[in-house]
Structure formats: C-alpha cells, structure tokens
C-alpha cells in the first residue's frame, strides 16, 4: 500500500528569482500573496449573524410554503386508473393472452367531475411500475437516427440492441427498446353535462405537447426532396416489432405529425426518471362552448383503444386530467416540505437562542 501515493511531487524550480544578484538576491518578494497576507473576509458563526439568519429562514420558508400551498390548492387534478376499470377489464383479460397482443381492443370508462376545471386542462396518460429508467432500456435508442441522419436511418447504432434490425435484417426505424415499447393506447374524451344532455366530444389539441427543443432540434425526419413522400423516405426500414403502424403513419389526421417528429413519439422518447410517471397526451382546446373556461363539472367518458399491455409487469395505466399553475402540477410535497422546514428551523432557532441566552451570552465560555 506504500506505493499508493507513489513518489511525492518534488520541487519545481521557481526561476523568476534567478536573475537577481546582490546581497539580498534570495530574498522572497514581499507580495501579499507570497506572504499569505491577502486581504480577506473572515466570517464567523456569531450570535448576531446566526440567530437572525435562522429566524429569517424560518419566516422565508413559511412564506414560501404558504404561498405554494395556496397555489397548489388552486390546481385541480383527476386521476383515473383504467387498467381494469369499466369495460376495459375485458381488454385487460384478453391481452393476458399473448396471442392477442396485436389485436386492437376498445373500451370505455366513465367518470364524473364534481367541480369545474378552470383554465387550461391537460390530459395525461400515466404508467405505473414501468421502468423507463433501466440503464439498458434507456440506452437502447439512437439519437442520430432520430435527428434524421440519412446514414443512421439504414444503419442504426449498436446502442439500439436488441432492436437494430428485424429478423430479415431490415433496419428498424426508429430503432431501440424505447421506441419499440411506445405507449399506443389512444383516448377520446366525451362530455355529458347531466345524464340525458347531448354528448360533446371534448376537443384535445394533440400537438405542442413536447418540448420545443425536442420538436425542433432533437427529432427531425430524414431529409427528403419535394417529390418524395414520407413513406418513400422510410423505405428500406421497418417499424419496431411491437408497433401496429409504421412510423410515417403514426398520426393519420395530420400529415406533418408523422415520422420521427410525431409528438407522441417524442413525448415517449423523453424517458421518465422514475417507474411511475405520466405523459402529456393532449391539451383542451378552449375555443368552443362549453369548454371556453375549461372543463365544466359533469359526466365524462373516455373511449380507449386499449393496446398497451401492462399485465406482464404488474403495471397500471391511468388517465390524468389536470390544470397547472406557474408552479406546475398538483404536487403538495414542496409546500408541505417548506412548512415543515419552517417549523424545524424555527424550533432550532429557538433552541439556539436558549443556548446562547444560557451559555453564550456573556461569552464566558470564550475565556481561555
């Protein structure tokens, strides 16, 4: 273990001295740096700084906590686990049989909003116990392919293992496990104010749901000339094995939302950090009544095309409706944490004050 340190670093010759001659030739320079006299600020944990600081912190945390709590209370959120809910149970059961994996299954779930969701309402799908953050899974993608590099389209990176090429050696586009496992349920939301009221389809805007940088920089379709269709561009590649549609037909309604720039794909490709996550599916369009102020209270139903199998890994699927504030979604952790911190800091501050009052005030401990 002696060798752990190796040989000590020896001397470096500081040669700026060599030029001097005379009786004081070797006298060190009188610079503040060399004499370790650099002017400096020496703060110390004194009563006059620590105690006010503690109380200020307690107050600060309190203020932040309270205002955050008010903000978060202003958001509304509805979560609905549809894995086995309503008619979806049939789909769930049928998908348990692996041979039905490719088959489409439709189902419907219903729910009621007690209160109106005011403002912009966001529609999410959520997955639980789905590990998008496994190292092997996460690495299994090729950014170069998805940014539209021609050569990577046909030659996906080895990172995409095991979804680089299909059994016929045709390159997969988009390659990799992440893309292959893309969430492929689809949702249609209907509103019925009261039973008997006409059923309104709730309009969801399915674009603008991914980061601007992802949409515009990170994901691009391979270059094509004017005459080519997207399908032609992707010729010579195959879609990932679990996909029901090729990548250039992901959005049958909007031709510009296909290929690698399909927003659902982009959203999916931004892997979640934790096994329980939700991803944006669409945003309420508030142009027409009765949705101009948000989602009114009442009965809703969701028609679901139930494709994504979760039973293998004990996962659950959710839909989430939520409004947001400047603080984001409905997460009460931070406000509560701030309030708790405020309380703790306050208690500590009082404790420190007592200590100071009893022991430190006359600084008799400070006598040598």
């Amino acid at each position, binding site marked *: 273990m002696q060798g752990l340190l190796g040989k000590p670093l020896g001397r470096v010759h500081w040669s700026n001295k060599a030029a001097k001659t005379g009786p004081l030739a070797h006298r060190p320079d009188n610079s503040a740096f060399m004499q370790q006299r650099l002017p400096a600020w020496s703060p110390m944990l004194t009563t006059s700084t620590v105690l006010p600081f503690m109380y200020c912190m307690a107050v600060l945390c309190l203020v932040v906590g309270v205002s955050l709590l008010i903000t978060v209370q202003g958001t509304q959120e509805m979560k609905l686990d549809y894995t086995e809910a309503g008619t979806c149970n049939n789909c769930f059961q049928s998908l348990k049989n692996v041979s039905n994996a490719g088959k489409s299954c439709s189902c419907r779930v219903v729910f009621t909003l007690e209160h109106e969701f005011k403002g912009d309402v966001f529609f999410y799908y959520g997955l639980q116990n789905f590990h998008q953050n496994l*190292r092997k899974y996460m690495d299994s993608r090729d950014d170069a392919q998805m940014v539209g590099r021609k050569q990577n389209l046909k030659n996906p990176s080895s990172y995409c293992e095991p979804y680089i090429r299909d059994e016929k050696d045709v390159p997969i586009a988009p390659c990799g496990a992440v893309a292959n496992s893309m969430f492929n349920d689809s949702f249609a939301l209907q509103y019925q104010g009261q039973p008997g009221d006409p059923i309104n389809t709730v309009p969801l805007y399915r674009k603008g749901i991914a980061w601007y940088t992802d949409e515009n920089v990170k994901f691009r379709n391979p270059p094509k000339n004017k005459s080519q269709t997207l399908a032609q561009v992707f010729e010579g590649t195959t879609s990932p094995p679990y996909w029901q549609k090729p990548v250039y037909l992901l959005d049958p309604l909007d031709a510009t939302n296909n290929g690698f720039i399909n927003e659902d794909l982009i959203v999916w490709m931004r892997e979640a950090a934790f096994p329980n996550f939700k991803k944006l599916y669409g945003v309420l369009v508030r142009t027409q009544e009765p949705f101009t102020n948000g989602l009114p209270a009442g009965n809703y139903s969701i028609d679901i095309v139930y494709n994504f199998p979760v039973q293998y890994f004990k996962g659950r699927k959710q839909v989430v409706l939520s409004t947001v504030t400047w603080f984001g979604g409905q*997460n009460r952790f931070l406000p509560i944490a701030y309030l708790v911190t405020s309380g703790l800091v306050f208690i500590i501050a009082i404790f*420190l004050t007592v200590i100071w009052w009893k022991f430190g005030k006359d600084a008799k401990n400070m006598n*040598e």
Partner: protein
Amino acid sequence: SLFMMSLPVQEEERYIHANNRPLNLPYQYADNAIRTSKYNVFSFLPLNLFEQFQRLANAYFLVLLILQLIPEISSLSWFTTVVPLLLVLTMTAVKDASDDINRHRSDKQVNNRRVDVLIDGELRSEKWMNVQVGDVIKLENNQFVTADLLLLTSSEPLNLVYIETAELDGTFILKCVFPTGEVRCEPPNNRLDKFKGTLTVNGQTYALDNDKVLLRGCTLRNTEWCFGLVVFGGPDTKLMQSSGKTVFKRTSIDGLMNVLVLCIFGFLAVMCSILAVGNAIWEVREGSVFIAFLPRPNGVNAGFSAFLTFWSYVIILNTVVPISLYVSVEIIRLGNSFYIDWDRKMYYPKSDTPAQARTTTLNEELGQIKYIFSDKTGTLTQNIMTFNKCSINGKSYGRSIGEKTQTVDFTWNELADPKFVFHDPSLVELVREGDLAAQHFFRLLALCHTVMPEEKTEGELYYQAQSPDEGALVTAARNFGFVFRSRTPESIRIMEMGQEVTYDLLAVLDFNNVRKRMSVIVRSPKGKLILFCKGADTIVYERLHPSCLKLKDTTTSHLNEYAGDGLRTLALAYKDLDDDYMEDWRRRHHEANIAMDGKEERLDELYEEIEKDLMLLGATAVEDKLQDGVPQTIEQLAKADIKIWVLTGDKQETAENIGYACNMLREDMTEVFIVAANTAEGVREELEKARRTMCPDAPDKPVVVEARAGLFWRQKTRKVEDEAVNGEYALVINGHSLAYALEKDLELELLRTACMCQTVICCRVTPLQKAQVVELVKHYKQAVTLAIGDGANDVSMIKAAHIGVGISGQEGMQAVLSSDYSFAQFRYLQRLLLVHGRWSYLRMCKFLRYFFYKNFTFTFVHFWYAFFCGFSAQTVYDEWFITLYNLVYTALPVLGMSLFDQDVNDRWSSQHPQLYSPGQLNLYFSKKAFVRCMMHSCYSSLILFFIPWAAMYDTVRDDGKDIVDYQSFALLAQTCLLIAVTIQLSLDTHYWTAVNQFFVWGSLSAYFAITFTMYSNGMFLIFTSTFPFIGTARNSLNQPNVWLTILLTSILCALPVVAYRFTLIQLWPTINDKVRHKVRKEALPAPAPRRPPVRRISTRRSGYAFSHAQGYGELVTSGRFLLRRPQKIRTDRGRGGGEVRRKQSAPKVWMRSR
C-alpha cells in the same frame, strides 16, 4: 556501472596501479562520470508510464477503464475515466520530466567540471567524467573533491587537510606518502566511515584506513593543494553508493489516508454487493416480467445480471475511492511548501538564506509536532564565543546584557582584531595606565593556551584555536595589548603593550576533564619564573593562597553574576616560582614523562604539587552566543505543549549552561536531575529515584498501551502513556549514562522519567545515540518528532525523526542536505511550526474532510437512485457532470480553501501557541472524523436525492409538459448537489480572499456555462450521441419549482451544519473559536516585542563550561607542528579574531565515537 554489471564475478578486491592507465584498463573500473537522471528522450514515455501505472491509484483507474470497455458492464462512457486519468498522468509526467531535466543539467555540469590530472608526468586539465581510477589528481583550495581519493600529499604541515564535507565534517591528519605504487582495497561500498586497503610502495606495504581517504562530495578547505589517487570513480564513489536509497518519509495522514482508502474499497464492495443482491431480487421479481420491453441478452439470468451489476456499480461508485485526492493532496502540499520558501519572516538577510522546504510531502506533519530534538552548537547557539566580561582584582568590567554602552576603541593597538567588540572603556584605560593586575591578567591570557598563531603578512594574525573559548580569550588579550604572535616548542613570543617579549615555555600542564584547568610555566626575559593557571573556579579556588581570601569573595560574587547571565567562566591565577624548586620539578617531570608505567598518575601528582598556593587574578566570562530569539522561541514552543530535548555532543557543564541561558533550565524549577552514573545499575537507580521524586504514586511498571495500526492492522504499536507530575523538573543525562539507559531493559525507564520532565538535556551523546533517543520517543510515544541540527553529527537524528530540520548557512551542509526543511536561524522554527505547520495541518484536514464529504455525497445519491431504477446501474447525473465534477466544478474552490485558509492570521497564531495543540492530538482528521464525514454525506445525499424526487414526483412544467423525465431530473439532482457542496465549502472556509471568491463563484458560473453549452443545439448536432441532453437546461432551469427544490435542498443541507457548529461554539468552544472570538473583539496584536532576557539571580555555584579537549598541550610542545611549515602568503583563511568559530575541532569527537 553497466560494465560492472556485465562482469561475471562480483568485484571482491580492487587492485589499482597508481598513475598507470594502461594497466588499470583491463579491470574496467567505472570512470568518474555520474548519471543521476532516470530517462532519456526515448525512454521517457514508456518508462514513466510504466512507473506511474505501478501506483495503485493509477492501476485502479486502469482496471476501471478496462471494465468500462466491456459493454455488458460499462455503465459510464469511457471518457468519465479517461479524462481524469489523462490529466493525472500528464501532470505527473510533466513534473517527472522537469525533475529529470534538472538532473540531466546538474549531471552535465558536474561531469564537465575540470580538474588537474597528472598524466605523463605533467598536469593536464581534464573533465571530471574523463578521470579514471588510478589517476593522480591535484586539488586546490575550495575545490570539490573529484572522486574518492587516497590522499598522497598536501601543502599543509603534518599533511593536514582541512575539508568541508557534505558527508562528514572534520579534519583528518594524514601522513605523507609517495605517488607511485599499487593499491589494493575493498570493492566499492556505501560505508562512509570505513576504508580498508593496503598501499605497496617500493616493496613496502602500508595499511590504509579511512583517515587517508578524501571522499567525493567534500570540499577542500584551507589547504592550498593536495594530490590524491583516484580509488573509486563516479558511480562507485561512496557518496553515490550511499545516496539514492533515501527512505521516503510519510506523514501520519498519509498512513491514515491509505487505511481509509482501503476501508473505502471495502465499503465500495459492500455497497456494490448490496446493489447486486438488489439487482438479483429485482430481476427475479420485476425484470423477468419486463423482458417484453427489454429482452435480456442471451445467457443472462438474474444471477449473472447481478454479477454484471456488481461491476457496473463498481464503475459508477468509483468516486468514493478518490483518485484525484492524491493529486490534490500533492498540489496542496506543494503550495504550502512554497509558502515556506517564500516567507520573508523566515529569510535571514545576513547570509541571504531563505527558508527552504526541501521535502514537499510532510507539511501537515509540521502542525503535529510533539517532541523537538535539538542540537546545541550551531543550532541554539551561534557557535561564536565572545569575551564579554571579566573580573580583575575584585572589580568587574564589561557590559551587562541589555545595557547600552559604547564600544571600546582599539585603534591605538595596531595588532588589534577589528572584529573584537568590548563595551567597557574603563578596562582599556586601566590596562593602558599600566595597572599591574590587569596587565598580568591579559599576560596570562596571552601565554596560557594552546592556540597556534599564523601570521601571513606582518601584523595580520590568525589564531587557530582548538576550542573557541580559548580563541576568544587569546583574542581579547590581543586587543588589550598583549598580542600572542608566535610560538616554538620552547618559547612564546608576545607583544606586551607594543613591546616584543619572548617567554621561555618550560612546561604545559595540559587540560583534562578531571583537572579542569591548564597551566603553563614560563620564564620571562627578566628571568622570572611564573606559573599561569586558568580553570574552573571551583578547582582553582581549592588551590589558592590563603591571602586571596577577600579577593576570592568578591570574585565569587562576580562569577555568580556571570553564571546567572549564562556566561562561561574561568578563574585565572598565577604563581611565582623559584629557580631551585623549578629545576627540581622539571627533572622529576622529565622522569615521569619517560616513565614506562604510571606515567599519567605521576604527572598528575606533579601537576597537583606545583599548582597550589596560587594567587587569584580574576575571572573571565565568555559568552557562548545564543542565536537571536532562542529563549523566546523555546518559551513559545513550550507553551504550544511541545517538549524540547537538547541532544548535544558538548560536555555536561556547557550543555547545562546553555540550558540556563535559553531558559530551558530555570532556577525556579522544582528539581534538576542529573544522571551521570557509570554503570547500568547506577543509571537505573538514578532514573528511578528521579521518577519517584516526581511522581511517587506511579506504578513501577510503565503503562504500555498496545494497539494495532496501519494497513490490515499489521503494525503493532506500543505507547507509553504520559504521566502527570506536579512541579517542573528537568533531566540532564550524560552520554555514558545514556548508553546504558538506551539498553533494552532501561529504555522505558528513561522514557518515562524523561517524559515527566519539562526539559531534557542529553550531553556527550554520539550521533548514533541521538538517533536512538529519537527512535525511542518515536516508537513508544507514537508522537510526531522533529529533529533540528546543523552538523554532520545531527544527520542521523535528522533522518530518524519524522521531520528533520537543518540550520543552513553554517559550515558543512550535510545536515541541510539530509533535512526536510532548512532555514538559517533556530527562531524560525517557531514560525515554521506555529504558523506554517499549523496552517498546513488545518488546511490538509479541512481539505480531506471536505473532499471525502463531497465525493461521498456525490456517490450516495447514486446508491439511493438504484432503488428506483431496478438496480440497473443507471447514473443519477449526466455522464459529463460525473466526468467534470471532481476535475472542474469542485476542484478549484477546494484547492482555494486548502491553499489560502487561515483560522487566524500569523500574528495571532504565534501569539497563541495553544492553537497548536489540536494538531498534536490529531483532532482535525482521524478515523472518527472520517466516519462523521460519511454520516454527514449520508444525510446530505438523502436530502439531495429524496427532496428532488418527492418535489418532482408527478408534477409537470408550468405549461403542462414533461419535467420528471430522466434528463431533467439528472440536471436537477446535479445542480442541487453542486450548490449544496459549494455551500458546505463556504461554511468551511474561514478566510475568504478574492481568489476564494473567484474560485467559488467562477466554478458555479462555469458549471452553468458548461452545462448550457453542452446541452445546446450546436453540441448536439455536432456530437449527437455524446451530448444527448439537448435543451434540458433551458427547459427545466426556467421552472420555478426546480429552483424552489434547489433552495429547499440547500437550506436543509446547510442549516443543520450551521446550527450544530453554532451550538458547539456556544457550549464547547475550541481554542480556535476562542481566539477567533478574541480577534473579532481586539485589534491586531502588536508584533511581540523583543524582550531583553530577564536578569536572573543565580545561586549556581559555577558557570564553568570550558569546551576544551585534552592532548593539545602535548602537540604544541612536541614541535611536530613546525615541520615543513610553509611560509607562503595566503589570504583565504579569514577566520579567527574576536569571533572564533568552533566546528573545526569539535567533530573530532564524533569521528572517534562513531
């Protein structure tokens, strides 16, 4: 040496033909070229890399790199390891290269020095590297000795050669031999003190020993020329053979660090095992059903996956084994060494010597010294004797210490030594007025001695005194008008107040340790017979004529006063003899001299007989000048709880005297024990008696705490506990007693007794004993030791101690060459320890604590994340952050702290020596502190992982889009981490210079700048797969909830630390806190005034401490010194005078005792 190695048979004997190159050629002896450099241009890269990868740290890195190249295992990209490794390798390589270039340069310079070689009967100038074994070379004064030489002849009488040595000091007395013949001698070896061989000249064989050899590394001094035969050249010289095997000193922190790193390895293995087991369980329960989305590679089952995960986590968690730690530690030590080199307050203008940190790896140990072992002569004292005071006929002359008086003008005396200074004009007046007592006083000083004069030009006198005291006395006489000019074995010629007088020298009654006096018997030109005697006052007093009783009393009071000032005193007396008695005495003296047996006793009797009924003349007081500030320094160091032991080769009296002079021994001490027994039993008794006096309740057997330490606890340590005593004691132990006391069965007794004492003085110790004493304390006290000295006899202890300090600027550089630190004055030791040492220790410990904290915190977050990512060895942070965290984001702030931090400034540091004691007790960094660091890290990492996790859980951006994606979370976690550790650093930093501010803010800004750059469109479009985090910074750092999370983690990481530290300061303030508190209240303390030493009222009987050796009386009367006396003009011997230096003869003792 390559040749030598290729020889099939080891050289067993060296056979040299003097001055005959062709005959020596077949032996292929190494020539005189030396090569100390390690590399050449081509071998540098492979050799250096090979060396570097032998170090465990680098090898570990290499293993990591190999692991990373296995795709199944690789959890991080290659660059996370390669970048730091390259940086470390490059830095070390650059440093090694610059070192080697310097070695090349110095080799070249040395090899190209010129020397005169006798070739074909004429002297030719040759380069050193071309000198061959068997050559006869001529050296001149002040030249370096070219190779190991057999001395043939020299310009000096008795073929004396004076050499100043790098390896040995001393003078050798050599016999003249002739430069033809053959030499047989031992093969090259590294023993500097031994030489065996024979010289055959004209069929006659002479034995050769070490005294006849000049070693390479020495310098010829005071010798006009000499001839020598090259015996060993270049790599075979004793200097080269004995160098290069230097033992690297390591600090205790180094040792601790190695132990900790090993613990960390173990800890890493444990963490990885836990995670691997976790992975196995996860794979069985979850992974097996997740294969629909992530098929397993062929042949991987849960067990194998766990195995791979283990290694993947070894890669990810490698940051707990802090590789950059070693580089940083070296940088910090280097920086702190430079501060020592640069310190003006340790620069000695008189000799233009700055302090020098010759070793750059021991700095923090300077802050932990518990024992100082100091040499006396040249270290505590200046090695300069001055004639300071005298008492003549009951009246005292000379200035008291501290008094300001004018110096005496000696210009009336043409032969006066201009360097001599005396402060009492009344004495000169007295002498010039012709006061008989005063004149007799100085006459005695001019006659009664064994000094050799040398007068190169008329009036330019040089004295060669074998003891500096004597030189000082003779010089004093010279200036007061009694100039000793020359001597023959039978006569002494002096100038008495301008008149030349020659005295017949009838007898020299030489000095020895028992007699403690010397006398001369002279006959004045007028035929008067006088015995002059000088000696220890106690001895002289016993032999005084009863009529001197009154004078004796006054002189005694003067002597006490002198002794109280720490002066060395001698009493002077004379006696008129009558011719008849003298005739008879001389006859008997002659008989005794030629007697076959009992010569010594008979002489002693004769001396005893004649040296009685003396008439007291007075007393002299010579000051063994202490170096400036020695008593104050010792006082301050004692306050810092550093024990100072003086180990000197001097006699007990001298050593005690200096002990009193520099306040180590004091009158008010409870007792000063003197151990001087001559048997083991006696020494034991004396030591035990001393111990019982000091601590009556102490158990008979010492309490030895046995423990195990070091790597794998292989090292056994034994520690003798300190025992408390009441009162202040001191121990003076003599060399021969020490020899017994250092025996196995007595050493613990010695150690216990000595450690109870405030002061320990060991006199008449040999260099070996010095080292033994140091080793004893090192071994049984487990304390950090420092040895300080200036001479060759201190080398062994300098090398033995943890830290060796050499006093530079003296003769003989040997001590400096083997030291770790060197400076010109003993008093700088205070600054070295109390300021530089303390700061270095403080900085190093702060650095280590912080470094471990930041790396553990960094790593633990990964550990927590493993429980969320299926133990799949996914990192929490961006790979680039992992690469740059230690190298860029946190490197400079922590370096800034460890290079600039001061708890209080240097003045407060030296004013409060108590600040030093935490270092001695290892308070700032220990295994405990390390565990505390880990707990702290654990807490911080919990905050830094779980707060962001909970805060981000299920939330979205303010526009409803994703923010809990992996990349955003990574960015959030790393930003939280970086800000938290930066705040921690700020809390640790006590001294915020502009540089610190710049480093801290700069590093934070650099983090954001680099992050935004790496996450930018451009970087992504150019290096798509290397920078996949495009846009993450822009999209998440504009979110208020991200910043609120960062704020909360910062508060939760910092506030407990603040509260904890504040509580500690309030309830149990450390000495540092107290002084810092005081600093805030008071202005900067004025620099400590140079107090004049306190005048002590002495009850000591005698200040006699004459450093005189036996045998010179015989020399001056033998007449041997007159053989071949050169009468040439030489000017290079600017020595002697009022200040007489001492080293010249003292080391003789060492040479013998070794």
